[in-house]
């Protein structure tokens, strides 16, 4: 794997097991800076684990992972913290802190990790909430938000530190088609306007085709297809062809 390229993310022969179950087996791929990669696959094939390995919430059993030219698998906590600041993570259920208001959820990383003044933080939070259409809801608790609003709020929190790499775990799951489309638009907008590298785990092929430049298909822990939509459609692997198909 050539790590001298301008790849934002590189997976090099990464394996991961939980007990006897191998979730990822010798997975290698890379994502160029500013590109969007959509990871497809059946449930339980290691897609979400891939994102958690990227942000080092999990450690691989074997292999190496580079994020923005830095090998992260053996970094200590303090160095890891610097790498994580380059990434934003939209969790499947948004993972908003339920004891904090929406405003506090977004302000927390700014207060903790930057020297910004209270006024600056207010301005940034307002701007980011405006981007996701939640300007009027900043005093609400997460429990007062609908599913779609929670997803958008989670996205806003992931974007508040202006990450170079945005990871999204099933951003459209449980949402109606219109709301899912709005989330996809936000991801596309983020990539286009800020050249953010976007990595999305999804089951929504329609959305994936709108957002993604490249596609990775996982099956039983193996990366069975990787490339553009056309390349994956021509894959020898039947699961890959079925998953990328819109029909």
């Amino acid at each position, binding site marked *: 794997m050539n790590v001298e390229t301008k790849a934002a993310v590189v997976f090099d022969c990464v394996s991961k097991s939980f007990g006897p179950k191998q979730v990822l087996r010798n997975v290698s791929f890379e994502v160029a800076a500013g590109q969007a990669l959509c990871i497809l696959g059946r449930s339980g094939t290691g897609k979400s684990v891939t994102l958690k390995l990227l942000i080092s*919430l999990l450690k691989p059993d074997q292999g190496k992972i580079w994020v923005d030219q830095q090998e992260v698998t053996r970094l200590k906590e303090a160095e890891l*913290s*610097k790498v994580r600041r380059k990434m934003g993570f939209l969790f499947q259920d948004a993972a908003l802190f339920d004891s904090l208001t929406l405003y506090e959820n977004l302000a927390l990383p700014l207060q903790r990790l930057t020297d910004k003044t209270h006024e600056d933080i207010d301005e940034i939070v307002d701007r980011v909430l405006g981007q996701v259409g939640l300007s009027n809801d900043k005093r609400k608790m997460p429990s007062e938000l609908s599913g779609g609003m929670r997803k958008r709020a989670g996205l806003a929190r992931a974007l508040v530190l202006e990450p170079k790499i945005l990871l999204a775990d099933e951003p459209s799951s449980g949402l109606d088609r219109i709301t899912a489309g709005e989330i996809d638009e936000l991801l596309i907008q983020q990539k286009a306007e800020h050249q953010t590298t976007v990595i999305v785990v999804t089951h929504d092929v329609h959305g994936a085709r709108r957002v993604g430049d490249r596609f990775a298909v996982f099956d039983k822990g193996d990366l069975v297809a990787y490339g553009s939509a056309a390349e994956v459609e021509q894959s020898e692997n039947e699961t890959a062809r079925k998953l990328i198909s819109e029909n």
Partner: protein
Amino acid sequence: MIKVIEFVGKVSLFGFRVIFDLFHPPFEAGQIGRQLAEAGARSLPLVLASGFALGTVMTFHTRSTMMMFGAGAMIPTVQAIAFFIEIGPLVATLLIAGRVGSGIGAVLANMRATEQIDGIESLSIDSFKFLVVPRVVACVLALPLLTIFMDFAGLLGGFLSEYAASRISFHLFIVRAFAEVAWSNFIPPTLKTAVFGFIIGTVSTFFGYTTNKGAQGVGEAATNSVVVSSLLIILADVVLIKCIFFVFPENAL
């Protein structure tokens, strides 16, 4: 047996990490304040009501026996010494283990199950320092204060009960209550509750923070927090009482 030793080892390491992180910045003063309000201020009504009821009932029970031996005048003294030395510290601690310990275990386990702890880590925030250390510190600080409230609520309950029976004046009750009480009867037993607070905080956060069983883990963490904390508190009480007797031998007489 091996599992018990393994558990003790894990909880001990967890506790040492709390102490280590406590003295390294950032110090999380805001979080400590929030948790102190949750563990301390919001537990106050329960502690006051329990102390008052316990003081009242204790006088009901001891009065007939004391009167039988012509020691009715000693009721306030017995009440005060019993509350300051053991009843206040132990009952306040067990109440807090139930109310706060279960809450801490459940909240952290729920945060783990809903990926909120992963969310904190993904934002480059040390979740252990942010969630665990402030809760343990709050328990350590809150317990001695709540114990003092428990002691005096117990005395107030005892006075009202005694007043109803013998019309004793408040002044006389207080004079008799404190006649035999030394500082060594009050300060060491009150301060030992800080150790109990450390046990409640550490055990509860351990069960909540380390669970990985989803919704089922929430219930288990809450239950285990209370059961294991209470057991360890009673064991620690025995050890700490012996330590107090060693330092203040007059208390053992």
